[in-house]
């Protein structure tokens, strides 16, 4: 089940998606069996995240508004990286800048560390006062990716969005600017109302929709890119079992990422691996 992309070989095609497996310090036994893990998004400064509630259930889906709670890159390097460097699989740090300068700082802080690569988070919907996601503009994608590529030789993944943009355009921009793979789809935009209070339920008001609900759309996005562009895609959106993994690979993904499924069952990665091996 080995997969090779550029200079990296993955022992199997299953990754644990950003934000759904913490910083990589828990369930080490599971992580080590996976093709790799992508950490929760790391920002320049520590972030405390959005008010509660941060998660609600929707039909076959999950809506979250965590808001990138994380210790910031300094503390992350100091306290978390030493633990991660003992892991026996690929580690990607998901970096979430709000400006190009921040992305540059994050790259400079992490570009020389012992990790396998960076996932450039161009698509987190849970940051307030942001008009558009960087991944909604091919131009912005190019600009950010180029700036990062100049500063590191590490394996780079662009985490794109399928919200209000054709990901074919942004995937092309990302690849042309030097990433080694693209990762999609991140969560879709979502909101839910409490019909009694008449207010949005989530503390962050809006959230990101994930889970099996979005799977047909996620598969479409990957298939759609793959029709035009033969690039390495890390596919995800609603993976809950081995058959879902197979569907993503049929759609054109080279690797897949389990997201919400980890919340339902932290051992899901292992279970899927076993199903695939049988």
């Amino acid at each position, binding site marked *: 089940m080995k997969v090779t992309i550029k200079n990296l070989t993955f022992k199997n095609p299953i990754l644990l998606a950003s934000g759904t497996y*913490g910083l990589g310090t828990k*369930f080490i036994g599971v992580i080590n069996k996976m093709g790799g893990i992508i950490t929760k998004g790391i920002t320049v400064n520590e972030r*405390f995240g959005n008010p509660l509630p*941060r998660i609600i259930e929707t039909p076959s889906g999950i809506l979250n508004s965590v808001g990138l709670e994380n210790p910031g890159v300094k503390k992350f390097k100091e306290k978390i990286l030493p633990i991660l460097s003992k892991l026996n699989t690929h580690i990607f740090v998901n970096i979430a800048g709000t400006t190009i300068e921040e992305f540059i700082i994050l790259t400079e802080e992490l570009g020389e560390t012992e990790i396998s690569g960076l996932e450039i988070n161009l698509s987190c919907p849970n940051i307030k006062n942001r008009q558009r996601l960087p991944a909604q503009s091919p131009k912005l994608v190019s600009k950010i990716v180029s700036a990062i590529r100049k500063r590191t030789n590490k394996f780079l993944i662009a985490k794109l969005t399928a919200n209000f943009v054709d990901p074919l355009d942004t995937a092309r921009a990302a690849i042309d600017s030097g990433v080694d793979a693209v990762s999609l789809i991140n969560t879709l935009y979502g909101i839910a109302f409490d019909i009694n209070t008449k207010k949005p339920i989530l503390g962050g008001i809006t959230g990101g929709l994930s*889970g099996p609900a979005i799977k047909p759309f996620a598969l479409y996005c990957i298939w759609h890119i793959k029709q035009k562009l033969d690039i390495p895609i890390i596919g995800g959106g609603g993976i809950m079992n081995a058959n879902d993994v197979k569907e993503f690979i049929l759609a054109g993904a080279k690797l897949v990422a389990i997201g919400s499924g980890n919340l339902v069952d932290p051992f899901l990665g292992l279970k899927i691996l076993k199903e695939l091996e049988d």
Partner: protein
Amino acid sequence: MIVTESAQIIAHHQLTEEIFSLLLEAPKIATQVKPGQFVMIRISDNYSFMLRRPFAIADCTQNNIRIIYRVVGKGTKELSKRKPKENLDILGPLGRSIPNLKNKKIALCAGGIGIAPLKLVASKLAQTNELYLYYGAKTKKELLFLNELKALCGKLILATEDGSWGKKGLIVNFLDVAFFKEQKIEVLFAAGPLKMLKNLKIKLKDFPQLIPYVFLESRMGCGCGLCYCCGVKTINGEYLRICTDGPVFNLHQVELTSLEL
């Protein structure tokens, strides 16, 4: 070590109109349980219930754990339909143990279904401490396990909101400064609705010596520290994980206002 276990339902009883007792055979989890901990139950394997539901462990033997729960929404309603012999997928044990305490005088304060976590806490602490139980519920019918609790606690103060048993009113109102001083009660464990914990916080201004531990609840994604969805704001403005840093916290350290569901 946290595990998932397909636990068979041994018994499932309706205790009151809304409250159920669910006994599960879950040896892998049961052998590890410490008081204060909880499990996450998967309500169904279809995607109508994406998220597991968290429940305190109320009793625990070598092989079995018991959950006491109130039907409040669609998940607990669906759970209440499960029958003995059926299996439930549970994840646990989750959260941290309560602190190790010995030779202390300890008060427990339970509001309604808050008795669930405090039951296991009581059976553990009773072995080496002297316990005072303050227990309130809406009506007499919802004051549960009184015999068992009597056997564990030196003193029981009971209250109901409608006055159908014990004192009439909210249980927090019956925590008495003079009595606590006199008895040298040093530690408190409280569990109950958020409203009760808020009342408690105000009340505690009169109890400067007391260490008040409380059981907190928040919507959870994973229950095991992966998703950053649960949380309570500390007085420093950062979030702690209820699932891994709690569910038991020192009431002085946390901002209850951050917990509205």
